């Protein structure tokens, strides 16, 4: 069994209630934190090597130490619970089953940052989890872990849940802050970074749900101990959302460094490919990261076993590697049409572009149109080159990384599966998938 730090009490009945959570050692990390100075807490997190679990993998302790601390200006902690990256559902799992773990982490983190107000920005579709969090926060207030002078420490904190309303872009931290201010979710130009000018132009730290939850075991065991778990600079454990053609989809906590092959095929995790088909491809870190064909999912370009870690998954760069991203692990069997999968992504990014920058707004629309045209059986070889050209012109030319996130899946699909695109455009009538697509759209009779 792999090491569990976040989901160790996953099977304890009632762990979502304060009573049971406290009986199982809940809120001890806050007690520990209150015996330390806030800088010492930041130091522990630095030592742990924890990296942001929202997708970018930025070292959390370092981010915290960048927080500006001008006199008399409030600071904020904002939890990013927008979770909208296709293939990712671990934050939902964590909040639904372990709401107090998030609240405990939020208190410890807010104390470290000197924030007296903290918000949880949660995607609006998760309204049933708003209920769960509101109830857990109420319990925490009643038990004296929130409010004024928490447990006699002299430290005060208020915590609120704030629902979004359906917009992937609000997961981007500056768009999230705009949205939290009651505006459209248009990303801001950086700098200034939120650490200097964030919510209400005050210094703000935005962290992912899982990142904040990980602060709890870090303080409980100590940063040095946490850093011993995992591999190299990928310390600790990570929640992986496994979906697609596997026997046992779900959320798994893994120790970073687990071989991809073991994750896919062992009984402890995904349990192998559905119906014992062959593996075709994996999107290892949410829709935005490059897709990997089977052989490159299991082995690095140099023939080493591919591991579930920030470094190993990106080995080979974008030519033959990918990224750990949010840990949204999407598995595709041999029957999967890569073109059609890509089309779902293109449609997604076009739908979610906020429209501020032309390369992203227009480019995502064109890319969706082109994959649609190819699936309709009207594509040409030139369309494949056009797709390539468009994605190249989006990447790096936009205000926020959504543009890159839309470009990378296109680039990787063409890079690794160009023959499949060519087959689609040169011989569309032979492709079962094209017919299937026709049926779906009622373009011809079923």
């Amino acid at each position, binding site marked *: 069994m792999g090491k569990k730090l976040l989901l160790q009490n996953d099977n304890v009945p009632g762990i979502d209630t304060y009573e049971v959570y406290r009986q199982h050692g809940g809120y001890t990390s806050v007690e520990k934190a209150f015996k330390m100075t806030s800088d010492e807490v930041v130091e522990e997190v630095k030592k742990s090597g924890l990296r942001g679990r929202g997708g970018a993998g930025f070292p959390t302790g370092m981010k915290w130490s960048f927080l500006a601390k001008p006199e008399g200006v409030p600071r904020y902690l904002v939890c990013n619970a927008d979770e909208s990256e296709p293939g990712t559902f671990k934050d939902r799992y964590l909040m639904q089953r372990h709401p107090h773990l998030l609240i405990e982490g939020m208190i410890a983190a807010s104390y470290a940052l000197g924030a007296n107000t903290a918000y949880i920005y949660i995607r609006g579709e998760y*309204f*049933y989890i708003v*209920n769960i969090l509101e109830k857990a926060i109420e319990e925490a207030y009643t038990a004296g872990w929130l409010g004024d002078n928490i447990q006699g420490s002299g430290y005060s904190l208020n915590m609120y849940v704030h629902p979004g309303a359906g917009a992937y872009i609000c997961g981007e931290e500056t768009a999230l802050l705009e949205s939290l201010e*009651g505006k459209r979710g248009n990303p801001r130009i950086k700098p200034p970074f939120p650490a200097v000018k964030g919510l209400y132009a005050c210094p703000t730290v935005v962290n992912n749900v899982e990142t904040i939850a990980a602060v709890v075991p870090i303080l409980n065991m100590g940063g040095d101990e946490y850093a011993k778990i995992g591999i190299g600079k990928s310390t600790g454990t990570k929640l992986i*959302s496994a979906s*697609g053609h596997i026997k046992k989809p*779900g959320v798994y906590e893994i120790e970073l460094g687990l071989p991809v092959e073991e994750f896919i095929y062992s009984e402890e995790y995904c349990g192998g490919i559905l119906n014992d088909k062959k593996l075709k491809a994996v999107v290892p870190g949410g829709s935005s990261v490059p897709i990997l064909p089977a052989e490159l999912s299991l082995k690095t370009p140099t023939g080493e076993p591919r591991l579930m870690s920030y470094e190993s998954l990106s080995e080979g760069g974008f030519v033959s590697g990918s990224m750990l991203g949010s840990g949204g692990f999407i598995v595709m069997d041999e029957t999967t049409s890569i073109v059609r999968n890509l089309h*779902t992504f293109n449609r997604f990014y076009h*739908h979610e572009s906020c429209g501020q920058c032309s390369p992203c707004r227009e480019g995502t629309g064109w890319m969706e149109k082109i994959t649609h045209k190819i699936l309709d059986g009207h594509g040409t070889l030139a369309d494949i080159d056009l797709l390539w050209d468009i994605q190249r012109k989006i990447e790096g030319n936009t205000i926020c990384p959504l543009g890159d996130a839309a470009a990378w899946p296109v680039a990787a699909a063409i890079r690794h599966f160009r023959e499949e695109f060519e087959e689609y455009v040169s011989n569309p009538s032979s492709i079962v998938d094209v017919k299937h697509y026709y*049926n779906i759209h009622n373009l011809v009779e079923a």
Partner: protein
Amino acid sequence: MSEVKFNDETLAVVHNLMRRYPEGRHKSALLPILHLAQAEFGGWLSPATMDYVASILNIKPVEVYEVASFYSMYNLNPVGKCMLEVCRTSSCWLRGADDVIRHIEKRLEIKVGETTADGMFSLKAVECLGSCGTAPMMQVGKDYHENLTLEKVDELLTQFTNEDKHSRYCDANTYRKN
């Protein structure tokens, strides 16, 4: 639809929500209040509803319109009493979301984006709802219906009755009375 005005209980919650944000920043409460308004006033945001929300927050109506039109959960046109939101993104597609959509289209005799003639059902194809491990799935109100099969879809469609509870994904009890 009757007059656009929250009852006293909801209004108290609205004022509590506004106090969650610092002095002078109560506009932050716009998104949660719009949700309450949509759930309360017929499942969509009519101009009258949006103007009412603007008056509560003491902001210009246009500040509400520009926000309401940005976010996909706000309906700017009337919808059926029961909106079926089927996820169509990669992981759900891999596990048969298209079949679910086609099945519902056939059974209800509507296409994606349409509402049945009796005003009961609307069908929407949506992007990833964070339920990819239990695909295919659809959301109705605040409920997630997961691991769908066509039989399960049929059962659900029979269960949904002609009440407007399906659009009530939040109400005065959603929030803590702080």
